[in-house]
């Protein structure tokens, strides 16, 4: 009895891994590369069994989210071809039947949906946590209602136009003012001598003469 049991155990132990090894190929799954040191530098964590367990759990979470509650578990994620690069291949088996694989496209969509959560879990980015074959969805550039450059243009043109108007108006006012004082000068020119040139010179300043000059144009 005991020997039968041990034989069965040995058979199970040998067969299950080989079955799972048979399932785990890059054609049916995805290769993952992690570049932890590149991303985190001095704060990089060691990749070990626990991290791998965490990764499997994250993938299971992604599958659950995508499939809408199907009970994916850590045991459904099969991993092989681990290297020192920190890269490995994984496949996902169906929770209902552990010898059947979930199609690639489903896995891809699940990962795409939860990509940000997976990245954040490992403190990595789209470039440093690389799923070979799954291109990251590029963020669309921000769309503005009014392009910012038009606003800057409007401000500058507003200032410039205000400046032009101010200068033209001041020129016009200056002209009017100088024309007015030229008219006054004309009126005050008695016998060809400007009043201004007489003021301040020796001689009495005759108020009456000046007023008369204004009224009687000689």
């Amino acid at each position, binding site marked *: 009895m005991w020997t039968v049991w041990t034989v069965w155990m040995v058979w199970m132990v040998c067969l299950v891994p080989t079955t799972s090894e048979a399932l785990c190929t890059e054609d049916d799954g995805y290769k993952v590369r992690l570049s932890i040191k590149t991303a985190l530098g001095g704060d990089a964590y060691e990749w070990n069994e626990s991290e791998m367990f965490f990764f499997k759990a994250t993938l299971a979470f992604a599958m659950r989210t995508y499939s809408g509650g199907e009970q994916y578990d850590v045991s459904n994620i099969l991993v092989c071809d681990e*290297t020192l690069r920190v890269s490995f291949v994984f496949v996902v088996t169906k929770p209902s039947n552990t010898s059947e694989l979930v199609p690639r496209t489903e896995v891809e969509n699940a990962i795409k949906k939860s990509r940000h959560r997976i990245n954040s879990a490992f403190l990595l980015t789209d470039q440093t946590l690389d799923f070979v074959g799954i291109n990251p969805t590029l963020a669309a550039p921000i769309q503005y209602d009014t392009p910012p*450059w038009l606003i800057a243009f409007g401000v500058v043109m507003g200032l410039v136009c205000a400046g032009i108007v101010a200068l033209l108006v001041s020129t016009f006012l200056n002209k009017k003012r100088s024309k007015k004082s030229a008219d006054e000068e004309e009126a005050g020119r008695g016998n060809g001598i400007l009043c201004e040139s007489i003021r301040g010179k020796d001689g009495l300043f005759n108020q009456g003469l000046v007023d008369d000059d204004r009224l009687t144009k000689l």
Partner: protein
Amino acid sequence: MGWSTKLKLPNPGLDERILSHAQLEKLEVEEAGERPKWDNKAQYMLTCVGFCVGLGNVWRFPYLCQSHGGGAFMIPFLILLVLEGIPLLHLEFAIGQRLRKGSMDVWRTINPYMMGVGLASMCVSLLVSLYYNTIIAWVLWYFFNSFQEPLPWSQCPVNANRSGTTKQVWECERSSPVDYFWYRKTLNITTDIDQTGGLQWWMVLCLISAWAVLYVCCIRGIETTGKAVYVTSTLPYVVLTIFLIRGLTLKGSVSGLVFLFTPDLNELANPATWLDAGAQVFYSFSLAFGGLISFSSYNSIHNNCEQDAVIISIINAFTSVFAATVIYTIIGFRATQRFDDCLGGNILTLLNTFDLPEGNITESNYDLALESLNATNPDIVNRLNLQTCDLNTFLTEGVEGTGLAFIVFTEAITKMPLAPLWSVLFFVMLFCLGLSSMFGNIEGVLTPLQDLKIFPKSWTKEAISGVTCLLCCCIGLIFVQGSGNYWLALFDSFAGSIPLLITGFCEMVGVVYVYGMDSRFNEDLVFMIGHKPNIFWQATWRVISPLIMLVIFLFYFVTTISKEFFYIAWDPESAKFPTLEQKPYPTWIYVIIFILAGIPSLAVPGAAIFRALWKRCSVGEESDSVHCIKNSLLI
């Protein structure tokens, strides 16, 4: 006297055309006369410095320096500065200050047959103004676009396919975000000069704003320009200093400086080095445009123009070297970034292919690791197609002209923290540099127009400058079409080169041999600045500077007509894309080239011939004169 030369061309009636020293003294004392004046010396100096220091100091000189032997380029540059630049500058200042007339009237006064020189100056100033302000419009476009985070040229726009995958726009992916933003989003460039591509509305708006800003600064001549230069001439230095401090703290800046200044004395034996140095000195000083003559004619008669010429030359040379230093710290940073990215990419590829742990291959042991891997698995390594990463290649990439400002520098800015701030500062600096040069260019157009009395006398200064700016803006619409950049390159090569050299040469010969050095110009300088110009000035004015200009002109002329006429085009369809493709000019371009270079140059002898014919034929009646000229021309 040893240096007095009997070589002086006959010039009857000169005394009637110019004010004598006594009259000038009286004018100065009474402060009479309608000529505008500078408010103070600082305005005059800043305006001249602004005119001389322009975009060329930032994007032409550093490239020449680097490509002609680095630190060794200083030697021909400084030698030619002293022998060619300073004497010509002093000459223009002195003749403007003495004759107190704009560039057109100065030559008409010296000798009516030399009026062609003034006409040539005006034509060149006009043609250069047209395209120079377009460059300012481009700078404004980038300035307006700098007020957003992230900067629009830092990433490619993204298309969403129907299958839900996102993809970068093809043209952008093949080249780079900065190239795409420049060639597609800014210029919307066509594939060749034949296709106009229509007006690009956003560039039309920027062009209008460039001319509007210029108008508001030039509206009343030097009255408004003199105030504007307090900002436009000083701000670039402030920004350059800020960039220097920022640049020196960036990684890789020192490698840029080392690359720039490492002297290669072998380059001194290359005549092209001396030629380029001479041309750079000449164009950098904005000589022969007529603007400097106009500016100095508004000075008081006893202003020390000799000192001004030396000071401005020193400032110009210093600015060139300073700007080169700043530019190359940033270029060194960018090249180092690119090199690191290139090397990082290669290392990643190797790690991924051979599944080695991270940190096995670093930048320091990359070469050794590559060698050992190549030894063990040569076929795999070959199939990887690793890029060769060479820092020097990155340092020499596209580092002159618009490529420097709008592609290389903008890319470097996107890699710096607080990128929008640096972008705004950089483009404000370029804007100020360009605008202050435009003041001189437009002065070289407006003053001759007033001298020629083309506008009715009742028109105010504001109206004249307004109409001129409006007309130039309308003609400048050529450069904001799809093919505008190709037209601009054409104008730049032909309008602003040969005619200027001819005009500069004629200016020197005109003052020294037609106006007269011994009895007139030397005496004028004694009257103005108090002492006779020493033997250095005599030697350079009479012999050395004209000779240098003649040599440069001949070389330029020969190289221009002997080389093939190609232009480089951005053609996404071409096989070598994103490298720019060389295309031959269509045949009708030769007409345009003749208009650009030929007409100003031919104006110099043309005006003299026309005047000779007119004099010969003006004895009879008006109708007789016309017939007479026609007959003379048919002979």
